[in-house]
């Protein structure tokens, strides 16, 4: 369950990064559709956070430690909303670039999450 979610969130994050990267290439700021995309990715990360905590509550142990696991879950959840919030104040292509960078960072976090969970 968690592995599938990690994969899906990671892929979604990369898609978001590509999409916003495309907007930046075309010299456009982030628009409503992009924010809906960010919301979708953020919801995935939130579900992942909840599922992760439920798994912990059930007594399952991440291979590399619970604290690191929870820290990365929280970081993954905060990542895209933070970038989206920053892009609100920057109505140029650089807002789009920042969200694209946020998507890439989230994808990296997902890879690390997978490592931390499976060892």
């Amino acid at each position, binding site marked *: 369950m968690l592995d599938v979610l990690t994969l899906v969130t990671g892929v979604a994050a990369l898609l978001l990064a590509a999409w916003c990267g495309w907007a930046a*290439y*075309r*010299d456009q700021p982030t628009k409503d559709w992009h924010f809906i995309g960010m919301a979708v990715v953020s919801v995935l990360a939130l579900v992942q956070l909840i599922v992760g905590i439920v798994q912990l509550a059930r007594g399952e142990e991440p291979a590399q430690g619970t*604290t*690191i696991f929870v*820290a990365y879950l929280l*970081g993954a959840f905060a990542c895209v909303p*933070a*970038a989206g919030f*920053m*892009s609100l*104040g*920057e109505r*140029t*292509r*650089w*807002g789009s*670039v*920042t969200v694209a*960078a*946020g998507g890439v*960072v989230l994808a*990296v976090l997902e890879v690390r999450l997978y490592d931390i969970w499976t060892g």
Partner: protein
Amino acid sequence: MTSGQAEVTPVEEKPARLIGGPGLLLVWFYGVMVVGAVSRSAYQITTEFDRAPLAYSLSAAAGLVYGFITYSLVRGGETARRAAQVCCAAELAGVLVVGTWTLVDRDAFPDSTVWSDYGMGYVFIPVLLPLTALFWLRGARARQAG
């Protein structure tokens, strides 16, 4: 199709604003590094400090430098710009010194730091970031003057 590359991006003309345009991306990456370095060192120092005290202390120092640069960029103004410039230079020196140190004397570092191997564990962002930032901050002064 017109080439997007050919047009020069207009930069915010408001004086002393350091986070407009490309600066925003810079702040984002610095923010990520602050969270990465500070949380990592906080965890390592509280749980296993004795294992690699030097490495963990260096990570904590890196986190503080990143934090200060982020704050300066967001704050803006000429003083903050200069302070950020000094810190970026210090950061670059830190990455280069620690990066070389970790390669030369592996025994001193039982565990890696943020700056180990020039920041290879962080996709070399630690070494690319100060270079980009110094370039950006230099341009910020030119834009204010001109």
